[in-house]
């Protein structure tokens, strides 16, 4: 069996190849005549495979099957997510802010809140970080009036924005959060306003100066 198959492959395979290529060429010509527009052989219609040397050329092509994606813009200006208003049964956009001196505790706690909301089915709109504030603790010297730097404390803040919190779920969520609050970490829940969103951006004094000059 094995020997015979080998014999077959050498002679008849070439014949098969030739016949197949001829067949495809005929088909290609036919399609060309039907549609006079020239098509690039690489991006022909889905059903036709373009042959190069091997009959299996282009067998793994799949990207042409995906839906067309718009070209990705590199710089996307941070758009403000819509601020939902309060309804009768649900709160609007809420900001859960976690702040503290110890970054590991603050980060882990904010991750815990995010995961808890995912599990409870509460929609999380956004979760961002506010810039850290550095506080220098200055002590008065024992002899003399000069103050010297005793310690440098950094306050970290993490915000988890919830899009709509049901009124029935609110006491449950708050109770769990308060019971699991670690030591040294502050939790605060407030409504999300436009002012909160604008506070995340740095001011650009040169731009404002130029705009003032233009309008002047």
């Amino acid at each position, binding site marked *: 069996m094995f020997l015979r198959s080998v014999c077959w492959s050498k002679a008849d395979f070439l014949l098969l190849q030739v016949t197949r290529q001829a067949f495809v060429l005929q088909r290609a010509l036919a399609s060309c005549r039907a549609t006079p527009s020239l098509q690039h052989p690489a991006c022909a219609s889905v059903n036709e495979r373009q042959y190069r040397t091997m009959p299996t050329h282009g067998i793994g092509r799949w990207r042409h099957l995906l839906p067309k994606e718009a070209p990705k813009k590199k710089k996307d200006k941070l758009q403000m997510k819509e601020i939902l208003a*309060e309804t*009768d049964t649900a709160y609007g956009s809420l900001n859960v802010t976690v702040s503290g001196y110890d970054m590991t505790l603050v980060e882990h706690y904010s991750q815990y809140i995010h995961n808890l909301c995912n599990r409870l089915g509460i929609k999380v709109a956004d979760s961002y970080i506010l810039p850290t504030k550095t506080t220098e603790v200055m002590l008065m010297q024992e002899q003399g009036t000069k103050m010297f730097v005793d310690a440098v404390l950094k306050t970290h803040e993490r915000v988890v924005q919830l899009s709509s919190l049901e*009124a*029935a779920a*609110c*006491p*449950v969520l*708050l*109770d*769990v959060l*308060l*019971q*699991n*609050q*670690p*030591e*040294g*970490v*502050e*939790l*605060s*829940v*407030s*409504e999300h306003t436009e002012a909160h969103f604008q506070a995340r951006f740095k001011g650009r004094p040169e731009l404002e100066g130029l705009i003032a000059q233009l309008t002047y």
Partner: protein
Amino acid sequence: MTAVGSAGFRHLSSTSVCRVTLQTKSGTEKPSSPWTLMAAVCLQRLPVISADCSPIEQQFRQMMQRMELEKSLLSDHELRLLEDSERISRKQADDYDSDEEENRGDQEIVLAQDLEDSWEQKLQKFQPGLRVNVCVKSSRHSGEGVRARSVPADAPLSCLADADEDLTSLERCLADPLVLVAEQQVGGDKLWLLPQTRWQEGETLRQTAERALASLPAAGLKATFLGNAPCGVYKYKLPKAARTESAVGTKVFFFKAILSDGGAPAAPSASLLWAKKSELQRYLKPAYMMKVERFVLAL
């Protein structure tokens, strides 16, 4: 609603944004239901300190600390220590040329080792608070009981009692959440239950719960209610003999609240208790307990 909780005795501040007042429809008569409605408040004192770790947690914590220490890089202070010790060894060498040395200024005067010693001294002076509050039952100075945070060194041990066992004290079991239980008169019997009171027309159930809290004999209990929605319901049907057309039973709606300020330590009254979830079973009736334990979280 804005709530801020911080470490220490939880200070909660809340501002109600918009309270929807109940609008009573005039003219239309609501069908009066045969159930009497009551609202109860589940007042919780949150844990003040974190709970002790179990043995596995302790072992894991030690292992993680060792791993992190081994993988970590030297900090600024440690680098400074190394540089100082190098400089001292160079100074003590025979061929020392002070002109070659870079001028460090402050660092030569105040060595990093000196800083470390001064910090060690400060640490010795610091005394952390006790994890378990001790209640001194009889004081040597006055006849009344004195609650002290730190135990005087020469107090006789026989008159010290663990504050954990004093069920009326707010400072017991700092690592667990406590629930307020009151003994109230309900239809002829004195029962232990969460403080409740009857709903009146024209007020929301949450306002009823607030009234229940205010009507307790303990003064100065300030609480923040978590939301307007109740967290649990208990239905009680009167025994068949007492049932009438208009009074089939009572429905009690529970509201959760967090204690924000204990106020002045009131005289321990026999009708108020702060109980852990495991101790609630001793005081509450079984059917009542089944409904209550569904929403009382002891994490």
